[in-house]
């Protein structure tokens, strides 16, 4: 994995809202070295689609989300929203385009300004852009989105963030992202700071808002079950590269990349009949992104790695319908091991 290539892009489709090609983000690390946070990532998202981005911490999934927002600007590559190339936009033009692109963050409490009233936080976008985008009466618009996310504007509006629980704060963050009627919302780990019972509320809310506001979502998370629940397509990232991308059902049922397989096998199952110790474990830790392995970046931890993986970087190729993998020895097709293709869950319980 850790592969490049663009075979999985869909240039022919005219409903692609956001397309990212060869995105590279590097940070200076001192001593002339660079942190290769994101290296040659490409993907596209169609109108009304939810793309899930999963991977361990340090795999570059949040950096990808931020690079789409141009926060910070990517080192290379292109990010196209509709027909506009975001990496080339500057100043007011970029700010104006960004109203179409909103973000929801991981920690709902610290991402709300503690000194401002909720109605001002939610309404800020309108107070800046209201006249220019013709969104009508700011007050009624703020009230409407607060009602939509399940909060009562009359009681909530004049309060401040510390008076709310984590789940309520995340509802406020969702309201804030909806107020300008955006095209795309990037959700960066929006439920990982919440309790399970509240997490389900927010996931359901995002689904409803997606329908009501006709949104396109990029959903970044490390929890594979959460990502599957909300996504149409899922992309798996490892150390700044994309390993595998495909429809959620297919990718989880037949993971083609050894890393995807290992991730799926690590999920704790709420079923006492599965013996946890018997499931396989991915050994080792993420290598340093300052000096990533040559060839396939996963090869240092991959149970299937061979010499070729060190010499040649695998490219994205199709292994099933709309299901692409960057691996020389994927777990499906000719290179499949005898027991591959059986979903992890089935093998575990069998």
């Amino acid at each position, binding site marked *: 994995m850790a592969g490049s290539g663009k075979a999985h892009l869909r240039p022919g489709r005219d409903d692609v809202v956001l397309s990212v090609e060869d995105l590279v983000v590097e940070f200076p690390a001192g001593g002339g070295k660079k942190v290769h946070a994101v290296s040659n990532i490409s993907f596209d998202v169609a109108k009304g689609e939810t793309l899930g981005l999963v991977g361990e911490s340090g795999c570059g999934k949040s950096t990808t989300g931020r690079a789409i927002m141009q926060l910070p600007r990517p080192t290379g590559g292109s990010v196209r929203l509709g027909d506009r190339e975001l990496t080339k936009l500057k100043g007011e033009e970029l700010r104006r385009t960004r109203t179409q692109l909103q973000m929801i963050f991981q920690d709902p409490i610290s991402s709300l300004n503690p000194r401002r009233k909720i109605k001002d936080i939610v309404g800020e976008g309108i107070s800046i852009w209201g006249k220019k985008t013709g969104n009508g009466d700011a007050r009624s618009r703020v009230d409407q989105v607060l009602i939509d996310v399940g909060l009562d504007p009359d009681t909530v509006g004049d309060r401040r963030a510390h008076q709310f629980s984590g*789940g*309520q704060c995340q509802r406020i963050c969702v309201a804030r992202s909806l107020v300008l009627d955006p095209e795309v919302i990037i959700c960066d780990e929006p439920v990982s700071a919440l309790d399970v019972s509240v997490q389900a509320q927010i996931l359901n*809310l995002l689904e409803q808002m997606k329908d009501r506001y006709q949104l396109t979502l990029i959903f970044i998370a490390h929890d594979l*079950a959460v990502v599957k*629940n909300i996504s149409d397509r899922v992309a798996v990232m490892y150390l700044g590269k994309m390993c595998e991308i495909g429809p959620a059902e297919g990718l989880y049922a037949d993971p083609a990349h050894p890393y995807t397989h290992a991730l799926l096998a690590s999920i*704790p199952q709420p079923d006492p009949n*599965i013996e946890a*110790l018997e499931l396989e474990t991915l050994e080792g830790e993420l290598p340093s992104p300052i000096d990533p392995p040559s060839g396939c970046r996963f090869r240092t931890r991959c149970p299937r790695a061979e010499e070729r993986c060190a010499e040649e970087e695998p490219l994205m190729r199709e292994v099933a319908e709309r299901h692409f993998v960057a691996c020389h020895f994927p777990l499906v097709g000719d290179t499949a091991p005898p027991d591959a293709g059986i979903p992890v869950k089935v093998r575990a319980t069998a």
Partner: protein
Amino acid sequence: MSPAVQTKDLPGFDAPTTWSGPLLEVIDLKTYFDTPRGIVKAVDGVSFTVEQGKTIGIVGESGSGKTVLSRSVMNLLPKRAAIPAGGQILFQGKDLRKVSNKEMREIWGKEIAMVFQDPMTSLNPVVKIGRQITESLRHHLDLNKREANETAVSLLRSVGLPAPERRLNEYPHQLSGGMRQRVTTAIALACGPRLLIADEPTTALDVTVQKQILDLLQTQQRDRHMGMMLITHDLGVVANRADDIVVMYAGQVVERAATKTLFKSMRHPYTEALLRSIPRIENRSHTLLEAIPGRPPDLANLPQGCRFAPRCRYAQDRCVTENPDLFLAEQPGHEYRCFFPVGTDAGKDALAHNSAVGHTATGTPVSIHGSAAEAELVV
């Protein structure tokens, strides 16, 4: 993790034990906090037992009192704020509530040890790894410096840390999160404790590292025949690792059972709701989750009746006025705190009644889905 190291060579592994009763018995434990907002009943009448060599899983959301419970057992709560309002914590027959800090020092690390949630902050950032491990070895086991270092190396090797000799001279910031949690585990295991308390040991870690650490805790627990309290908010973590599970809600035990019994015939609506709200990997995408409406009650201002009633699908008039006791289920050792338990006729009738009226006795609309409309409106 590494099979080359025999756990039985490590100190304390075969420490003679004369105690044959339950390792830890917590009886009607109450820990309250005096705050400006009133008395916060963080732990309110909790009882459970940990047998030697067994793992007990303690499950609950944040604010359910599970962390205060573990700190009460460890006697680690600030004396000024916490009011020990009652109950007993019997560790090998000795009531830890009556033990002074000076005596506790002989128990901490040697008899009971703890692995904390956040490996980033539970290690001292300005002390080398080696000294943090050998500190308790030298104190409790009277080892000299060389012996202690050798033991520390074999401990680090047994928890699967690569190049342990080199690590002794490193500082915590030089290690990754997973490696730090291995170090805190090594510190906890150093003196061969009889009881290990793991308080959300993997919440801060990635899913692959989480599995490594949980596997490590489980193998060490089995090899050393320790008792373990595994505290978590994730039923998935304890489902196949704990022998018994205690489900806590708002400071109380709402259900307690052997793990298989709990998953097969759960009785409490909260346990059921908790399990149902977890997104499952085998479900199709876009499956609507059965969220629990609302949020846990304020521990300083608890409802009069059942503490879960405002969020419960089964709630009846009786639940609003009266907090149920723990009832015994047909399976031995299975207890639950509910008048209308799941899977019984009383429960079915309650649910049917609520669906017919359209809302529960507390006014929560009945629908299996946590839609935005039914989510709490702030009043």
